[in-house]
């Protein structure tokens, strides 16, 4: 075993219980855990290699906790991220407001971070159309406006999950050449000072 090598930092953001952990579980372990919901504490990190063309790219995925308690420290998780999967629950309109908050946060602090809007739990919508609380077109409009990609996924059925992460990896792979010299991989030790100057609430 050698020290961990991570090519691209990917951060999962979104209101609590929208299904961030489930999405990572589905993608990394190909499973969906039923049973009582266990909120994430702080954040969980997993490294996942993925084949893009003839290359292997390792995504370092940070699954953050949605609880407001951790909001003030969220920057350590998304700082230097190349991609952010901002999740909202298709059956919960307040979760989309929260997603907008994260988008704004990312636009302010991480201009190099590509944003992927992800509507979760689409199996619930498929089962009952009236369960949808977030309008599809509202989201696509918003996505266009901020230049983000848009996905609707289900971690329960696996629908669209691999596609989402594949897209993240491909985009990274395509853009990697441009940005390479400056910022490669994830080094939490870097930019410590600049971090201190900008992480606080008012």
């Amino acid at each position, binding site marked *: 075993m050698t*020290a961990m090598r991570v090519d691209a930092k990917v951060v999962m953001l979104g209101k609590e219980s929208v299904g961030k952990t489930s999405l990572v579980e589905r993608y990394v372990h190909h499973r969906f855990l039923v049973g009582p919901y*266990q909120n994430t504490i702080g*954040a969980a990190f997993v490294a996942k290699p993925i084949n893009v063309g003839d290359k292997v790219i390792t995504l370092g995925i940070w699954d953050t906790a949605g609880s407001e308690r*951790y909001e003030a420290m969220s920057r350590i998780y998304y700082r230097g991220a190349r991609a952010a999967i901002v999740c909202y629950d298709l059956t919960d309109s307040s979760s989309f407001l929260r997603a907008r908050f994260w988008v704004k946060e990312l636009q302010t602090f991480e201009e190099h971070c590509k944003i992927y809007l992800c509507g979760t739990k689409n199996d619930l919508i498929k089962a009952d159309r009236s369960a949808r609380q977030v309008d599809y077109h509202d989201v696509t409009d918003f996505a266009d406006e901020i230049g983000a990609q848009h996905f609707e996924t289900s971690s329960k059925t696996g629908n669209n999950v691999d596609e989402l992460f594949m897209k993240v990896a491909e985009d990274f792979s395509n853009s990697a050449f441009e940005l390479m010299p400056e910022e490669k991989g994830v080094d939490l030790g870097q930019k410590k000072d600049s971090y201190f100057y900008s992480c606080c609430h*008012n």
Partner: protein
Amino acid sequence: MAADVHNKGVTWDAPNGSLVPVDRLRSERSDSPTPGLVQGTEPGAGQEHAMFMHAQSFEDLAAESESNPDSDQAEDQSVLGESQEASEKEGEEEEQRGGAEPEEEQKDQPEENQKQHQKQKQEVQTGVRGKEEDVTSEAWRRHRKHVFVLSEAGKPIYTRYGTEEALSTTMGVMMALVSFVEAEKNIIRAIHADGCRVVFLHKSPLVLVGVSQSSQSDRELSRELQYVYYQIVSLLTLTQLNHIFQHKQNYDLRRLLAGSEHLTDSLLRLLDRDPGLLLNAVMSLPLSSSARDVVSTSLQAAKAKSLVFSILLAGNRLVTLVRKKDQYLHHMDLHLLFNLVGSSSSFREGEGWTPICLPKFNTAGFFHAHISYLEPKSDLCLILVSTDREDFFNLSDCKRRFLERLRKRSAYQALQEAVQTPTYPVSQVGIPELWHFVYKSKSSGLYTSPELPVPYQKEEEHERLIGLYRYLHSCLHHPTRPLRSVYRCGDTENLFAWVSTITTAAFNKQV
């Protein structure tokens, strides 16, 4: 073992005596629903220099404060955990305390109570919080122990059973009682009425209230409330709590605590069942000392500059603990860590990285804990506590190195086998008729106890057993007339407890 596990030469002084880095600038953040948190103490604020400001604060350690854990040991690090078998006890040279044993106290337990126990058990088993419960129902009233947390404005923060909303009037009344008495420069400690004890603990900015129908003393209840208080502080820090309520007296704290209720629930269950919280001790995993030495040395070797404590757990048992020179981990903080790990499956999903305040160490700041299982299906969980929130990858590497080293040794095999059989039958100590015992080594802050034999396996019997230990413990540690040994005969069991400079044990013999 020579030992500074971690590098020397780091100085931990707080130049300006404040947690806020001197020259921190502000910058705008997007609108957040969370009210302003204190700069520098928001979860995750790196506070390397501030972290060690007040070494340990033992001030409100429950009644019997312990001497500094092994502060006089030659080694710079302490490795906790020894295999404790009966034969080894005699050799121990420290003063120890022992728990106690069961006896008949069923008289105090009307049948209703028993039913109640069964009900609680069902709730626990289904993993459902009794949240939907109707707070006006008889069943709700009959819970053996209620715990409420409220703000000084009388706003509900936590209730063990039922929903906080439904209890806002009740909590308002509680707050009124507290402030009424305090207006006269008095402190309300407890109310005894109708077979109930209502115990108050005012730790500004929180008020904690326990309502118990058990035979527990006010002191014990108040100590349990303290645990709950520290649980909350460990999530937010006291600095942040104070800040929030200074700015907004009637802030609804449940917002920031959302998702943490199960931690408090599970802590309260531990308090009902784990003698360790009573004894100020943690349970060690039985393991041969040679294997433990190898594990400890491997853990020591995996150092990082910011690493303060490295803790290896097997389920709820301690395998070993390595600490930075001169830094001590209070048993209460250790219990909070145990509880965090034990009640969250979330750390199974990768490597956890979370801010945590260890309130007995310092209520003002956060450490960052790297929490992960050694292997996906394993019960062995490694907690690496760091002062630097940016240090995730270094700690992750520490874990990797530790595991690599360990895998090369046969000790790993021994450890894995020990994890498979974490308990032992009481018969192993070779004392005929002995049913159960708890043995604590005071110097190490560890205790050992055999598996529960048949008569105590049922949930309510288990809790009754803990009640008996509690009784013996309270005799040994009575504030005015502490006893050195206790023997009590009962209908179903005899109890024996002994504090000794050589050895302490508590027995439970069949009559």
